[in-house]
């Protein structure tokens, strides 16, 4: 019995080995290189000096030398990271508020209609992100379509000046990432047994109570997955802040790009990318912790 099990286990491991090796090589490899580059000395003209190890890149993240040659705290990069995180967090919130009802609406349609709606929802994904952002640029810019519509409806007499602001970034990111929120929630909703909602109504739950006590816990996996799927690319968002935000404030993505471009400081760029990776990992760990907590809550005394 035990030997049979171990044979099966070994066979499984053997069959999975190529896939695992591929993942280790093509995902782990570049990541190791990134960490390595962040830990060596930069070459004067870009590139790095392999073998000269230093943690300068990480020091640069937090400290700078002032005019007198003293090392002082430099919060510029932290601020940029914080801004990116806030923006990503806001995007998660906005896509959740818009995406949850959307997913629920779709899940409650007739199956044939559902497929059609999902198709429409994912249509924008067929268009390049850059092009989609340009579309918003045309919509939002001064005297653009939105302004014209608002003025035609006599809602305003002046241009709204939405473009090149945080509002424009928020609109662009919410729009871009909405499908990433809707699809996992929809997938969870589709599996969700809506007769449970009737059971909740039967037991005296109002619509709101049924939503909060039955539907939300029932599709929690989808919600968490959606939040993560939006948060991670939101953190690294690059095109939207540049095009719709007028590039007045750097995001992590832009900052990293300048290190490999104009500044030609590869180790610092790699270090910045590594810090970003750590933030993403933290988000993933938080998710795991949340799931674990809810499982514990399930199996413990209420």
């Amino acid at each position, binding site marked *: 019995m035990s030997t049979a099990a171990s044979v099966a286990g070994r066979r499984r491991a053997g069959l999975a080995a190529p896939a695992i090796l591929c993942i280790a090589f093509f995902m782990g490899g570049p990541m190791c290189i990134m960490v390595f580059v962040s830990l060596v000395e930069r070459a004067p*003209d*870009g590139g790095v000096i392999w073998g000269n190890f230093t943690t300068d890149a990480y020091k640069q993240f937090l400290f700078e030398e002032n005019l007198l040659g003293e090392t002082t705290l430099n919060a510029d990069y932290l601020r940029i990271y914080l801004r990116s995180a806030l923006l990503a967090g806001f995007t998660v919130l906005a896509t959740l508020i818009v995406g949850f009802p959307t997913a629920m609406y779709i899940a409650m349609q007739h199956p044939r209609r559902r497929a059609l709606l999902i198709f429409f929802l994912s249509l924008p994904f067929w268009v390049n992100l850059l092009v989609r952002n*340009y579309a918003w640029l045309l919509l939002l*810019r001064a005297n653009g379509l939105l302004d014209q519509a608002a003025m035609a409806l006599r809602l305003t007499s002046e241009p709204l000046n939405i473009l090149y602001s945080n509002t424009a970034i928020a609109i662009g990111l919410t729009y871009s990432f909405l499908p990433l929120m809707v699809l996992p929630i929809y997938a969870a909703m589709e599996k969700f047994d809506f007769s449970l909602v009737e059971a909740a109504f039967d037991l005296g739950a109002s619509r709101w109570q049924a939503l909060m006590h039955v539907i939300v816990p029932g599709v929690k996996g989808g919600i968490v997955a959606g939040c993560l799927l939006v948060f991670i690319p939101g953190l690294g968002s690059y095109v939207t802040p540049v095009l719709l935000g007028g*590039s007045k*404030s*750097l995001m992590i993505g832009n900052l990293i790009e300048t290190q*490999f471009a104009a*500044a*030609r400081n590869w180790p610092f760029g790699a270090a910045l990318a590594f810090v970003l990776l750590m933030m993403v990992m933290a988000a993933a760990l938080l998710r795991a912790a949340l799931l674990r907590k809810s499982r514990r809550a399930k199996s413990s005394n209420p």
Partner: protein
Amino acid sequence: MKLRTIASAALAALLGAGAALAEEEKQVNLFFWPSYIPDELLERFTKETGIAITMDIYDTNEALLAKLQAGAAGYDVVIPSGYIVPTMIQAGLLQKFDAPSLPNGGNIAPGFADPEFDPGRQYTAPYMWGTTGLVYDSAGTDVELPESWSVFFEPGPLSGKVAALDDEVEVFNAAAYYLGIDKCTEDPREGQQILDLLSAQKPHLLLYGSSGTIDRVLAGEVTMHHIWNGAAHRVRKARDTARYIYPKEGITQWADNLAIPTGAEHPENAKIFIDFLMKPENVAEITNFTGYMNAISGSEPYLTPEIAADPAVNMPAEYADRLRPGRECSPAARDLRNRIWTRLKK
């Protein structure tokens, strides 16, 4: 090596443009900026020489440098800007081919035959060149503006109707010219002055943006745009009230160059291609397409009248002393610049 180069160049010349060396397949791989050469010209090259062309696209010199440093092989012709050429030569990324020795090598215009970044044109041949100045729509200002960066950094009534390029180097350089500071300064105090100027300017800018510049001016989103002169030319084509400024404090001149990477698989074909692009009628076609000036003598007769007549492209001679060639700064200067840029946008 040198012998072989000369021999093969001679052979290529002998057999006419159509024949490359027998051992080289009839293929040349370009690594180019986007929309920087007309397709018709490429087709004509293939028709005339029988050499097929493939093209990959990059969008910054740094991306090119990084790619070659990382060992990307297979590209035969690349197109680095002047300022980055010394770095690439030093890093051994380019091979010598002695541009003046090619059949059309004698056409290189005098001002471009012996640049600081590649004395004697051993590693590069000139391609397009241009300037980074300002364009404004005089219909939106009522008056002609002075030829100075002051209108950009202290826009007064144009506040909120001005856009800067989203380009660390260009923005920093413009500020340095205006303040009379060396653009490769390593002095933090000077850096602070530049930061102060840029920070004071920022609230008056509608945005920093490098793409869609032409459209932005034409749509009336901004009245003044920090701009590359080829784009300015297109603005002027669509709007005859548009004016291009060569500021008296100095204006960056950039010059792109054709070069052959060390790892090129078809260096002979690359030379045939580069030579093709030094023929006046061919390069004029590129100027007509891109709106950027070339550096080949004898191309003027082939230029369209609107290009020949546009001072934004065909610079009047009196501005020649305002040109400041792009330069590669030291790592310390680059760090300072990047810190200022980051702080400006923190």
